[in-house]
């Protein structure tokens, strides 16, 4: 490629990172990856938040054994790097007869991790609601579940929304870890295309795909923070 010598630095930069020919060839692959990432992200967010909410409600019931189990679950999944769990399940479990597909492993691990964080966030929200609210509701004859559902959670959720949004974004971004076990998400498609094309443009495209996917939610989370800032009563 003696032509490269005549390129200005800017042209060379563009040729390396924003090469139209490479982009034109590989953008459909990145789009496929985007759809896989999006599907995984939605599944993880829905499962993780619902499981976390259910655990926090169960914890509010106050059964000692259940609470110890919930706290241990939340602590362990918040302490372990998700990649460790992904490798363990994907490469370790087949040896004992449990074979899960790559996307399934990523879905299960990230959902559990988000559930652990969501449980802690919801629980902090529930405990931050004034005891008087429980008493007032119970004094009018509302039951435990009704008090939790109609009085406590609506107030708790407002407080938990900003940290929950931030945590959900941070964990769904980890779908990129799927590339390590061959899940055809954005990063996997981008690195594959990069090695085929010998050009860094697919990586740029991949980064842009992540920005397109997550930036709106980052901005939304920032808005939630200013809107529902923790207010001390």
């Amino acid at each position, binding site marked *: 490629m003696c032509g490269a010598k005549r390129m200005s630095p800017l042209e*060379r*930069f563009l040729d*390396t*990172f924003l090469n139209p020919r490479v982009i034109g060839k590989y953008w459909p692959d990145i789009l496929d990856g985007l759809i896989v990432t999006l599907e995984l992200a939605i599944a993880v967010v829905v499962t993780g938040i619902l499981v976390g909410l259910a655990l926090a409600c169960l914890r509010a019931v106050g059964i000692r054994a259940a609470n110890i189990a919930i706290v241990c679950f939340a*602590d*362990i999944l*918040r*302490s*372990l*790097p*998700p*990649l*460790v*769990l992904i*490798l*363990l399940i994907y*490469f*370790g479990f087949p*040896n*004992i007869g449990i074979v899960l597909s790559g996307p399934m492993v990523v879905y299960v691990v990230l959902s559990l991790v988000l559930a652990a964080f969501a449980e*802690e966030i919801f629980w*902090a929200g529930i*405990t*931050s609601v004034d005891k008087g609210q429980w008493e007032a509701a119970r004094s009018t004859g509302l039951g435990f579940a009704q008090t939790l559902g109609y009085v406590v959670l609506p107030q708790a959720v407002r407080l938990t929304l900003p940290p929950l949004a931030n945590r959900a*974004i*941070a964990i769904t*971004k*980890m*779908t*990129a*870890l799927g*590339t*390590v076990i061959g899940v055809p998400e*954005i*990063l996997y498609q*981008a*690195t594959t295309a*990069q090695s085929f094309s010998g*050009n*860094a443009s697919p*990586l*740029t495209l*991949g*980064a842009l795909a*992540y*920005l397109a*996917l*997550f*930036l709106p*939610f*980052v*901005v939304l989370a*920032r808005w939630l*923070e200013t809107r529902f800032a923790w207010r001390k009563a």
Partner: protein
Amino acid sequence: MNQILDQFLNFQVMGAAFPTLMAGLLTTAEICVVVILLGLAGGLGVALGSLHSSRWVRWPSIVLVDFFRAIPPLVLLIFVYSGLPFAGIRLSPFAAVVIAFLLNNSAYYGEVYRAGILSIGKGQFEAARSTGLTRAQTMLYVVLPQAVRNVLPDLLSNTVEVVKLTSLASVVSLGELLYAADMARSVTYNASPVVMAAAVYLVILWPLVRLVSRFERRLSL
């Protein structure tokens, strides 16, 4: 049952892998120290930038933070490690890991500091300025000490995330804890080394995670 124990808690395999894992742990510790210290400093700069009175400083800071919060750290790492060489910039795995995680974590630490500074009432600024302290002195001696104390749980929880993040360095073949464990796994066809790595992470991080929860409960009262 025996099969499960043999696969995941094989002490023979663990014993053989132990020295490699400890060497990996040392590398993990090195990455942590560099990324945490530089991240804490960089984050402070980012926070001050995002609260600057001039919009020409403020908005670029905020855009940069949101950019790094939207990009998965692994994407950043692979971009730095295997994208930049195309432009003639070749970095060692360690340097690539440090740069990628530093960019990522300055943004996260920055947001934490920012929330802390915003939690300090205007009266504190005014009182300090009224006694003749400069803007920088006010920040350093009056606002930051209170701000950091207010967000200590978040700083700590972000630091836990940094330690967990170092496991991604295994993807670019940097010989940290998880890489060492996964190598041992692929050689022995046995998952016990990865279980051992998980145990090491747990031993280090569980107390910190507990501490974060403790802190949060105390502050919410």
